[in-house]
């Protein structure tokens, strides 16, 4: 173990305080996540129209109010699914990818972007817009050099709720896809 402390007895907080307006991290693009979760597989886009009825069922089943978007869904030739979704919590916004096997079990989850801030910012659609479609290559120029933040453990409960919603979505819309005529 070897470390150079700025100071162990932290006396003057002002000197050490490094303000962060928002912590934004972009881990990977959708394409990179596809390669990680479905290596060497070809995925084809399979957008699904989310009717009001379906949206309402998802809301009831998951208690997430933020609408689910049906245009970020991909399918593998052997029936697996790759879905990109986001959770917009009071304190964070997380874009993530979920891989499901043909039976709807979660194969893996990968975080694409993590933006931490205060509620009033995250809640505004306009504010969120600046992060959408960004890739690891053109990361937001905001405190990018501040990595390695320790502290009390963050909870991923909201993300867990989001993943639950994705599995409910599978049951309601993907299980019998394409819809079979009776």
């Amino acid at each position, binding site marked *: 173990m070897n470390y150079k402390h700025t100071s162990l007895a932290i006396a003057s907080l002002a000197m050490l305080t490094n303000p962060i307006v928002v912590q934004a991290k972009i881990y990977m693009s959708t394409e990179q996540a596809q390669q990680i979760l479905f290596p060497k597989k070809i995925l084809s886009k399979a957008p699904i129209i989310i009717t009001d009825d379906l949206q309402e069922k998802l809301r009831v089943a998951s208690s997430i109010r933020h609408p689910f978007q049906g245009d970020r869904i991909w399918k593998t030739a052997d029936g697996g699914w790759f879905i990109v979704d986001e959770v917009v919590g009071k304190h964070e916004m997380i874009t993530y990818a979920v891989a499901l096997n043909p039976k709807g079990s979660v194969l893996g989850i990968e975080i694409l972007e993590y933006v931490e801030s205060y509620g009033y910012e995250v809640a505004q659609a306009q504010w969120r817009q600046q992060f959408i479609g960004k890739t690891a290559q053109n990361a937001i120029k905001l405190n990018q050099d501040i990595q390695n933040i320790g502290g009390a*453990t963050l909870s991923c409960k909201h993300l867990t709720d989001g993943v639950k919603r994705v599995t409910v979505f599978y049951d309601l819309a993907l299980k019998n896809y394409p819809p079979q005529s009776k």
Partner: protein
Amino acid sequence: MMTRCRPLLGTFVEISIDQDLPMDAINNAFASIEIIQGLMGFHNPQSELSQINQLSHQQAIDIHPWTSQVLRVAKEIYHYSGGLFNCGIGHRLVAAGLLPQHIKLANVDLGGIEDIHFLAPDLIQSKRPLCLDLGGIAKGFAVDMAVKILTSEGARSGIVNAGGDLRVFGDTPRRLYLRHPDQTKLVLDIGEFQNCAIATSSLYFAKRDCRQSHIINPLAKEDDDMHVHFEGSCSILAKECIYADALTKVLAISGQEQHPCFERFSAQTIWIRA
């Protein structure tokens, strides 16, 4: 340089390595954490921990070598902290609504980590019924295990951060920051580090989310003193994250930066009193 993040152990686990290695290196590190989650998760009624809680007072239980490693360290820290660190507080967290209830706990004289005995390296039995929660130590162990896997896969330097408890490995000095306990969107620069771990206990997220304190004093006699309340944030620097993680509880509960336990484990304390 590659950084990935997955939700594991109830938090966000971020793994970053400085060189380009096949994706399997990080995949295997995440997989080891998933195994630990499957073994030691309180939330999962099928986990090995849940089996221990249900059966270890009735029969000897064969456990995974990793669980055995965590229990040994837990007993060691229990011993040197004079009982301040004790994983046998699961029922307190259940009662506070912080953990789910799997087993009926009423009117049972529950024991603690001190009641666990090793009959063989991976075989344990308990003298009394138990409700262990490894939430205060398994995360640190998972970070250490991920580092072990990464280095065995050829990673020379990097960082594993499990939602704020982290370990840096390799000879590249890295600047570390700690969240400001009063204003969590500010961070404090604590200097440059290499080959060490840091873990933190603080109540700022619990307060923000209006939850009861998750730091339990196992020695408290009265219910009112059970949940420890403290200001600021308690961090421990140690060589391995398992010790850093567990010792933050000793610092938070004892309130003593000079507790002999820290010297015993070559750990250093950082208490930011906001």
